[in-house]
């Protein structure tokens, strides 16, 4: 234990001493400066460790001058104070170290003095147990801060310092006034003493006014909307190190005071105030940052928003009606938030210091040139935006689940704000990863420390809180996730990484075999692991294009999906869901033109995840069993989350570019398996939740319509795509629409159809995307009109694509038909006749793009520039072969898949009988019809071979002619380009359906985005930059607070 007074005193003395020393030797002064900071760091750390390890149990009480508490000035350091103190000096040390590496700013000596004063002031604010002493420390901090902000001596920094000073003076005037009046009213200045005396005092309006004045002063310092203009200016104008310390450390000290004020000065309106100001600040700031072009100011908005969330949490934390467990959760959440924000935001500000321009366009592409920068940046951004397993995620999760159900609108507020946060942070991400940027400064040690601390804290939080929240993790999955990260080490050779990944997935399959197949979870587990293993095989790194982090991220996606389907608890499912979403975001972002797509993907993932989280929050229980819920809200929220991943209209707008532009190696997984997680989720949502609500049937009918409309419109739009992967993307989305219909029917037949189609869609769409990857790799473009005639060069790929297309079109005898047959049977049995018609039409329209793929890519004329392409790489060819053979086998023997599906459903009440049975001649027999797959296969293959043999024997000699030997009105074609019909293949059809393919949903989403950001733009204008106005806001808001909360009516 170190006496806290020592920290303050030594720092103060040292500041004084440095002021003199620097005149003689700058170097010694700096050494002394760092010695002081290191001492502070260790001293504060020792105290904090003492509390953590339990060696210190009682709060440390420092009696200055030996006076016992009510009389003298005391420092009172409990666990929270020690923690914040440690945080302050950690950040200060990091900041100072950053300065040191960068080259200490001039004038060194004065800045060192001010810096020490700032840290000790913040520490004093934290430690003190006396109100007037608090005021003094606030002033020390403020004066040091004014000086430091101005010390950069740029126009912006002095301007910011001046504004800070004016508003800060008003704030300290408030605080001083209220402290003195408090003394007048209670006769004491000691916090604890006042706290005990206040209970005996009747709360007259005047008295409340005094307290409110204190709170108003604090709220100014805590940068609530709209009196935070000064803070934003400081963030924008000051030296980033100063900003990092201010935002990371000093504000946290003020926050602690805010908590203390809430605790000691029992203020009746504290809860309401913190809710209004915290929530308001949080919500507004998350949106007004949308169009901000200056990165530092933009980070400032984010800081302000985070603080708002903290203030909101404080309101709940100090609410006496809160149950103990929730209080515990919120406390933990606050700790995590503070930690998260301090380190992530400081890291970001220090990173910003390394970039020359603070404008958004100045950040363009810098992630691509600076791997370490990228790592730190991603970590910080992920942590702030709440991506698992970083502390920001746990903080948000804990907070949300601690908020009582009668305040559930607060959840909405938090989640909407979080969504706004996603939008602008990933816009920065997008900008920073787009194109080729320039090299940035390498002064990254301090932010790197922050990033590593964040990761560590995330893992610790995971360990500490996951079980408390009821989140259960399968230990094998965790092990496999660890392996996934470890694969990163092999990054010096992509081939090794590939092989290593295969080994890890293989090991995963080996370990997971007992779990597979037996029930719904096991069924999907088998799909995930076996399917991923196959698709992983096809990611064989053919070039250096593959990013170093590709395989780790890929494996994280795979195993988080495995964890997801194994989850027996909604929250576990959610955690893995988020992990999967964000890991796939990382993967999508690797596509060279996918930055915008990744941004949109991030936004929609967040929409889905947050809506799902809100749904889970509203559920009466967390386990995956039948849950009784009232009303339609919960299922709606839950299902929205899953529909986003399935890209069901109208939530599909992310899909086109995310599928189209993500790395070719990854798209098969995205379409083949990740979208199936939405299927899994919807299935369990329908099974456990929607099945139990009174409006369940109509809800499912609407879902069925959504699926049908998705299938129809996506198919229609797919017809007009000229980009191979985008076409497949729309097709994929449309196909998942069929699955949704099957799920929505919720009859045994429907679910059989859905699951059959799930597996089948994985096979053929995985195959198609793998083939597309190979083709794009060989041809160098995904633009179909520039291909053509590739059947001559890639026969195997053509064959497998052909089979996949036949399956996709649902034409017997290939397996795709099974899903169609089951689906239509289920639909007609259910009597959803209009949906049947739409679905049928959709699947007819699908033939159009099926032909387009085959024609534009493989048939027609082989183009000049493609005349030397080769067959796809060997591993891809193997995967293609495996997949297309399995399509054929399933086509002949659908029972191979139907039987396991029946076993899966056997355990579910009401689903025991599959709705069909087998007969020898009729094949699969439902209540309505029958379908003999084996017969059809034998019949087709047999008669085909018969016709072929007959033809080959009897017909004339057939001459294989050249490519341009076509009847062309007697002309000799000059080149393949003259003859190839690739572009505008369906322009005639477009005229017929132009009303249906107007991108209405996209326009609506764009409109929403534009409206919100335009509105935010207007709100942003209140920060006029004029200090008079800022001061006026302060006064105005204070008056409003005083008027509404003093109780004077």
């Amino acid at each position: 234990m170190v006496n806290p007074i020592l920290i303050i005193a030594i720092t103060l003395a040292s500041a004084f001493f440095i002021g003199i020393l620097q005149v003689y030797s700058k170097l010694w002064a700096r050494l002394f400066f760092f010695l002081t900071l290191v001492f502070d760091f260790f001293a504060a750390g020792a105290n904090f460790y003492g509390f953590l390890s339990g060696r210190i149990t009682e709060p440390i009480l420092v009696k200055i001058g030996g006076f016992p508490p009510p009389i003298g000035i005391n420092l009172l350091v409990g666990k929270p104070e020690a923690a914040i103190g440690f945080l302050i000096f950690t950040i200060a040390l990091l900041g100072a170290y950053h300065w040191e590496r960068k080259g200490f700013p001039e004038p060194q000596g004065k800045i060192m003095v001010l810096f020490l004063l700032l840290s000790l002031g913040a520490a004093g604010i934290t430690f003190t147990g006396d109100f007037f002493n608090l005021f003094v420390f606030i002033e020390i901090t403020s004066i040091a801060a004014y000086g430091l902000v101005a010390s950069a001596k740029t126009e912006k920094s002095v301007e910011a310092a001046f504004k800070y000073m004016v508003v800060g003076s008003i704030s300290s005037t408030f605080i001083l006034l209220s402290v003195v009046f408090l003394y007048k009213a209670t006769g004491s200045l000691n916090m604890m003493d006042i706290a005990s005396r206040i209970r005996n005092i009747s709360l007259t309006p005047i008295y409340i006014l005094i307290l409110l004045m204190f709170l108003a002063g604090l709220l100014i310092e805590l940068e609530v909307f709209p009196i935070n203009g000064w803070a934003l200016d400081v963030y924008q104008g000051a030296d980033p190190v100063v900003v990092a310390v201010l935002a990371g450390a000093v504000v946290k000290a003020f926050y602690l005071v805010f908590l203390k004020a809430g605790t000691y000065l029992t203020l009746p309106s504290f809860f309401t105030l913190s809710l209004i100001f915290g929530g308001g600040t949080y919500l507004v700031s998350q949106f007004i940052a949308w169009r901000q072009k200056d990165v530092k100011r933009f980070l400032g908005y984010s800081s302000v928003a985070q603080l708002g969330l903290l203030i909101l949490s404080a309101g709940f934390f100090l609410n006496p009606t809160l149950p103990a467990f929730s209080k515990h959760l919120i406390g933990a959440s606050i700790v995590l938030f503070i930690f998260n924000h301090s380190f992530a935001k400081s890291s970001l500000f220090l990173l910003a210091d390394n970039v020359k321009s603070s404008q958004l366009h100045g950040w363009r592409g810098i992630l691509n040139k600076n791997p370490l920068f990228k790592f730190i940046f991603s970590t910080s951004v992920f942590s702030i935006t709440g991506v698992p397993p970083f502390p920001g995620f746990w903080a948000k999760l804990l907070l949300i689940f601690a908020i009582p159900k009668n305040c559930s609108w607060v959840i909405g507020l938090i989640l909407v704000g979080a969504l706004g946060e996603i939008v602008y942070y990933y816009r920065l991400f997008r900008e920073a990863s787009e194109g080729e940027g320039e090299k940035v400064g390498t002064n990254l040690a301090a932010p790197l420390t922050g990033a590593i601390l964040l990761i560590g804290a995330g893992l610790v939080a995971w360990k500490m809180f996951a079980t408390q929240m009821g989140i259960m993790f399968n230990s094998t999955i965790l092990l496999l996730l660890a392996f996934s990260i470890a694969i990163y080490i092999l990054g010096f050779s992509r081939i090794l990484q590939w092989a290593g990944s295969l080994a890890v997935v293989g090991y995963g399959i080996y370990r997971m075999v007992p779990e597979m197949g037996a029930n719904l979870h096991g069924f999907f587990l088998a799909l995930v692991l076996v399917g991923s293993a196959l698709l992983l095989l096809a990611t064989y790194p053919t070039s250096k294009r593959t990013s170093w982090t590709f395989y780790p991220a890929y494996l994280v996606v795979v195993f988080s999906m495995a964890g997801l389907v194994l989850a027996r608890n909604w929250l576990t499912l959610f955690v893995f869901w988020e992990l999967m979403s964000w890991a796939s975001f990382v993967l999508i972002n690797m596509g060279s033109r996918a930055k915008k797509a990744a941004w949109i993907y991030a936004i929609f993932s967040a929409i889905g995840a947050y809506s799902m989280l809100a749904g889970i929050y509203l559920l009466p229980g967390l386990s995956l069993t039948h849950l009784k819920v009232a009303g339609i809200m919960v299922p709606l929220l839950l299902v929205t989350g899953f529909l986003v991943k399935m890209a069901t209209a109208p939530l599909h707008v992310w899909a086109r570019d995310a599928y189209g532009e993500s790395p070719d190696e990854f798209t098969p997984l995205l379409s083949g398996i990740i979208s199936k997680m939405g299927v899994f989720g919807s299935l369990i949502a329908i099974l456990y939740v929607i099945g139990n609500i009174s409006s369940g049937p109509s809800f499912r009918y609407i879902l069925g319509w959504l699926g049908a409309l998705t299938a129809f419109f996506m198919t229609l739009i797919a017809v007009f795509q000229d980009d191979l992967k985008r076409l497949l993307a729309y097709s994929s989305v449309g196909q998942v629409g069929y699955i949704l219909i099957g799920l929505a029917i919720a009859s045994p037949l429907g679910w059989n159809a859905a699951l059959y189609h799930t597996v089948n869609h994985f096979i053929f769409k995985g195959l198609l995307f793998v083939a597309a990857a190979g083709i794009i790799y060989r041809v160098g473009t995904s633009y179909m009109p520039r291909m053509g005639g590739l059947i001559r060069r890639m026969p195997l790929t053509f064959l497998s694509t052909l089979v996949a297309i036949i399956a996709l079109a649902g034409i017997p005898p290939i397996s795709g038909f099974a899903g169609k047959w089951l689906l239509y049977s289920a639909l007609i049995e259910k009597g959803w006749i209009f949906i049947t018609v739409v679905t049928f039409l959709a699947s007819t329209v699908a033939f159009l793009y099926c032909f387009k793929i085959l024609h534009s890519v493989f048939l027609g004329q082989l183009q000049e520039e493609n005349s030397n392409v080769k067959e796809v790489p060997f591993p891809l060819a193997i995967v293609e072969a495996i997949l297309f053979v399995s399509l054929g086998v399933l086509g002949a023997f659908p029972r191979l898949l139907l039987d396991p599906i029946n076993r899966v459903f056997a355990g579910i009440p009401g689903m025991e009988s599959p709705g069909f049975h087998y007969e020898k001649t009729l094949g699969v027999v439902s209540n309505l019809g029958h379908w003999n797959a084996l017969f059809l296969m034998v019949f087709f293959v047999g008669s085909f071979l018969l016709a072929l043999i007959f033809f080959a024997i009897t017909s004339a000699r057939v001459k294989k002619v050249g490519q341009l030997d076509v009847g062309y009105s007697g002309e000799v074609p000059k080149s393949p380009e003259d003859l190839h019909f690739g572009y505008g293949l369906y322009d005639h059809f477009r005229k017929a359906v132009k009303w249906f393919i107007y991108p209405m949903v996209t326009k609506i989403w764009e409109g929403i985005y534009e409206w919100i950001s335009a509105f935010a733009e207007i709100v942003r204008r209140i920060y006029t930059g004029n200090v008079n106005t800022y001061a006026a806001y302060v006064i105005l808001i204070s008056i409003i607070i005083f008027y509404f909360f003093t109780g004077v009516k």
Partner: protein
Amino acid sequence: MAFFTASILLILIGLYAVLVKRNIMKIVIGLSLMDTGVNLLIVSLGFIRGRTAPIINVKDLLFNTSSKVVDPLPQALVLTAIVIGVAVTAVALSIVMLMYSKKGTLEIDEYKELKW
């Protein structure tokens, strides 16, 4: 009460300057005025009519003088507050100097580079 009113008035005058005046120096003066007003208020709070200054020597301690002097604590506080006020004013003025050296004007409207 007169002290009270006067100090409140001083604070309000200062506030007026901060809110309305366009000249940076006048704003700083306004801040100083507010400071002074607050200090005056604090002193007036500790004042009890009919009592003397709380300067106590050993002799007085014997005669229960605590009932004869005004509340000493606000005076002690105000001392600190004055010091702080001076410091703030000093920093403010140096910032104003910096500002002037940058743009050569004291017009507050010229300092709106940071906004939105």
